[in-house]
């Protein structure tokens, strides 16, 4: 590995004299070498396999629920099974797909490359994080396989500790362990971004994806421990039969809700912020134009992360919380919406006077902006205290957070996956199939979740196994859309795996992007950079005048 790369600022790398070993070959080819490798790129791919498995489990649960909800009376599965289905869908999606997906897969792979480092600050902690994630996942799958949990992903107190006789303890232990996996990932990113940036790479030359991952890591590190302790208290209550949330002792179940939502609302910002970071990268690269208002977008990410910790009470407006607290949380919820609005406006202005290539990653980015705008605006509906009283715990809320999670986070993840696929695998995915899949997902998504807004305002409560007949029309529409969405998600799985074998070989920089990660050959060698690059230019130095020729499969 002694090929001396010229001292490149951000110019094109002349092809090295002899073939560089890629990280597939250099760290060893056996399964053992992969399972014990501390290379951040390999751990990223190991995470990809894990979250793919958990996404499938949760997607099957969702499909069964949508089939059940086609008819008003609960006639396909019993109500116990239905309760277990939505709990499986909730817990598996939240803790085993949404939270780890962008930070642990794309983040693990791309962060060291973007800052010109050889690896993360603590490579062994990174591998430990993957093993903790899988051990937690194993516990969760054990709980699901041997009878499931019927408390919902929120584990609300008197029910989850005294009245549910399902495998709550095992599931709680699984999430407790998986929580430490996300703490370690967050810790790794914070120290890496602080301490291991390439010379010349100041904070305001960082790509915006790193700003959002840095903020996500702060939330990961600061919010997850409170969930860990809350779950310990729930477990203690189940083991010893009584505890501090037990109303018989004068305990207060609403205190559990405070502790739970102190973690769970910042957790939804853990899920959406990386998606925003990916979209900032995609919009600039495919509009060939520097981001509009770099500082504002960067600080908007930090602002979302910080204010996100002040808003958890808007989940509890009707849970006998004091009127004063409701006013405080309603105000904070409106304040946290402002940075999101800033980001959407900045992305839109970035398109002005750009040269827009509608490739697959750009389709996902535009889909993200559209769906996130609708999701974010309905968030404003829910922040209004008087309005939330009617719609909380109904399908209006279900539609809102699916617009943000599925329309925002999953679309952002797929966009990022397609954008960095040439760098990760060294192969190009088939472009036209990619565009088709993006369109199918967009249509299927809207048909699935928009009717839920309407049926939510009509008053259909959440987590209902059988519902009043007048809601059937909207539920049938939603179930139909869900099948289209299901097909939409299978498409990328197929052609991405196909591209591993038959995709065209990817050049180092197929999208002619300006990030540091595109200065390495794709797939990059184990130590990423021969010499640590010196960064002198501002980020996103694209110029829309020149007509670039983007290479795609």
């Amino acid at each position, binding site marked *: 590995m002694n090929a001396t790369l010229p001292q490149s600022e951000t110019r094109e790398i002349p092809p090295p004299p002899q073939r560089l070993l890629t990280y597939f070959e250099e760290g060893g080819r056996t399964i053992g070498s992969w399972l014990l490798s501390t290379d951040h790129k390999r751990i990223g791919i190991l995470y990809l396999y894990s979250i793919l498995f958990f996404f499938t489990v949760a997607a099957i649960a969702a499909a069964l629920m949508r089939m059940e909800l086609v008819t008003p009376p609960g006639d396909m599965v019993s*109500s*116990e099974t239905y*309760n277990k289905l939505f709990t499986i869908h909730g817990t598996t999606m939240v803790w085993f797909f949404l939270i780890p997906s962008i930070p642990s897969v794309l983040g693990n792979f791309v962060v060291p490359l973007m800052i010109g480092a050889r690896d993360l600050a603590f490579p062994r902690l990174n591998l430990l994080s993957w093993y903790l994630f899988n051990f937690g996942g194993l516990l969760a799958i054990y709980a699901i396989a041997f009878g499931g949990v*019927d408390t919902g992903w*929120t584990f*609300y*107190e*008197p*029910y989850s500790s*005294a009245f549910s006789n399902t495998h709550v303890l095992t599931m709680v232990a699984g999430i407790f362990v998986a929580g430490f996996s996300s703490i370690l990932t967050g810790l790794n990113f914070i120290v890496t971004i602080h301490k291991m940036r390439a010379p010349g790479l100041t904070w305001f030359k960082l790509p915006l994806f790193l700003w959002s991952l840095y903020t996500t890591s702060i939330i990961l590190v600061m919010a997850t421990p409170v969930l860990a302790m809350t779950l310990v208290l729930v477990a203690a209550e189940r083991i010893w039969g009584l505890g501090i949330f037990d*109303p*018989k002792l*004068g305990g207060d179940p609403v205190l559990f809700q405070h502790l739970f939502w102190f973690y769970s609302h910042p957790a939804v910002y853990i899920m959406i912020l990386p998606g925003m970071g990916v979209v900032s990268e995609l919009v600039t690269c495919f509009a060939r*134009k520097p981001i*509009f*208002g770099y500082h504002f977008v960067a600080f908007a990410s930090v602002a979302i992360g910080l204010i996100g910790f002040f808003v958890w009470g808007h989940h509890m*407006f*009707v*849970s*006998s919380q004091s*009127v004063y607290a*409701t006013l405080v949380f*309603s105000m904070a919820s*409106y*304040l946290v919406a*402002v940075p999101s*609005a*800033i980001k959407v*406006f900045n992305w*839109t202005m970035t*398109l002005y*006077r750009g*040269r*827009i*290539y*509608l490739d697959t990653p750009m389709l996902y980015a535009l889909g993200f902006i559209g769906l996130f*705008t609708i999701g974010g*605006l*309905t968030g404003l*509906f829910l*922040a*209004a*205290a*008087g*309005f939330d*009283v*009617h719609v*909380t*715990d109904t399908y209006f809320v279900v539609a809102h957070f699916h617009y943000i999670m599925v329309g925002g986070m999953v679309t952002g993840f797929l966009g990022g996956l397609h954008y960095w696929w040439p760098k990760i695998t060294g192969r190009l995915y088939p472009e036209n199939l990619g565009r088709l899949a993006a369109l199918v997902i967009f249509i299927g998504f809207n048909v699935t979740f928009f009717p839920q807004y309407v049926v939510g*305002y*009509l*008053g259909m*409560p*959440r*987590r*209902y196994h*059988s519902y*009043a007949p007048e809601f059937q029309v909207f539920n049938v529409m939603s179930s139909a859309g869900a099948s289209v969405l299901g097909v939409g998600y299978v498409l990328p799985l197929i052609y991405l795996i196909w591209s591993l074998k038959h995709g065209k070989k990817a050049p180092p920089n197929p999208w002619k992007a300006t990030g540091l990660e595109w200065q390495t050959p794709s797939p990059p060698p184990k130590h990423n950079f021969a010499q640590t690059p010196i960064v002198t230019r501002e980020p996103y130095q694209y110029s*829309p*005048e020149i007509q670039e020729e983007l290479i795609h499969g």
Partner: protein
Amino acid sequence: MTLPIFPEEASKIAEQTDNLYWGLLCASAAVCLLVFTLMGYFLLKYRNGKNVDRKPVHLPEMKIEVTWTLASLLIFMCFYAWGAKNYFLIERPPPGAMEIDVVGKQWMWKIQHPEGNREIDQLHVPLGRLVKLTMTSQDVIHSFFLPEFRIKQDVVPGRYTTEWFQADKIGSFHIFCSEYCGTSHSRMVGNIVVMSPADYQTWLTQGQPGNTLAQSGERLFRELGCSGCHVGKSVVRAPPLEGLFGKPVPLNNQEVVTADEAYLRDSILFPAKQIVGGYTNDMPSFSGKISEEELLQVIAYLKSLGSQTPVREQ
């Protein structure tokens, strides 16, 4: 206006909430329109392959950013205030409302009228009357949701939560439990029947009259032995209960609390929690010996005492 996308409006609160819904919808539509048309226009005009002037032009970045930040902040504050106003209306029960007790039990609603009528999963109320529900739960957290009145309130075990409404349309509307409470959470539904005051009176009398809530509370007051200590020159010193409800009570740690339902309930279930000034802690705890409905009946009796001394033990 009863578009299919709206549930029926059966109370003033419903209209207020729908107005707020329309306001939010229009504002969101405006923002969506602005963002999507701008994006669509840019996508069409600046697509790759179209030779259009793409020379970077200097935009006053700071000015633009500050304007749309302040603009969105201003709009958000307006909706915050509107939402807060509606929330006040929903959260504050007006004085002089008819008191109905609701006890949530795993997968049914047990409702007690002050006249003594009891119903399961059914709530009959007269048109136009202000009704205040005092609610508690025997086991897990439920939530009493009336979609046609646009109100919802969690029913938390160990505490009284209140909810109020005034029906201004005759008919039968939904009651849903909207906080997940176990296996048959989706079957914990009922309907609220709004009747004209005359029909309501006839319904009251036809229902088994029995004795009113206060009278059955009085019977319990004697049976459980409360009158043994709390009445007249009994041997054990216990605070007098005449005209207790709503009055400030000085505690022995120099605090003063108002004797509302929550205070009465806690004093019966956890006597040592707040001991009245000048008394010792020797009242036995009744938790486990008295059900939620009986507790509400005893409290209804104490409330109906006014300044009259409680009945002596027969």
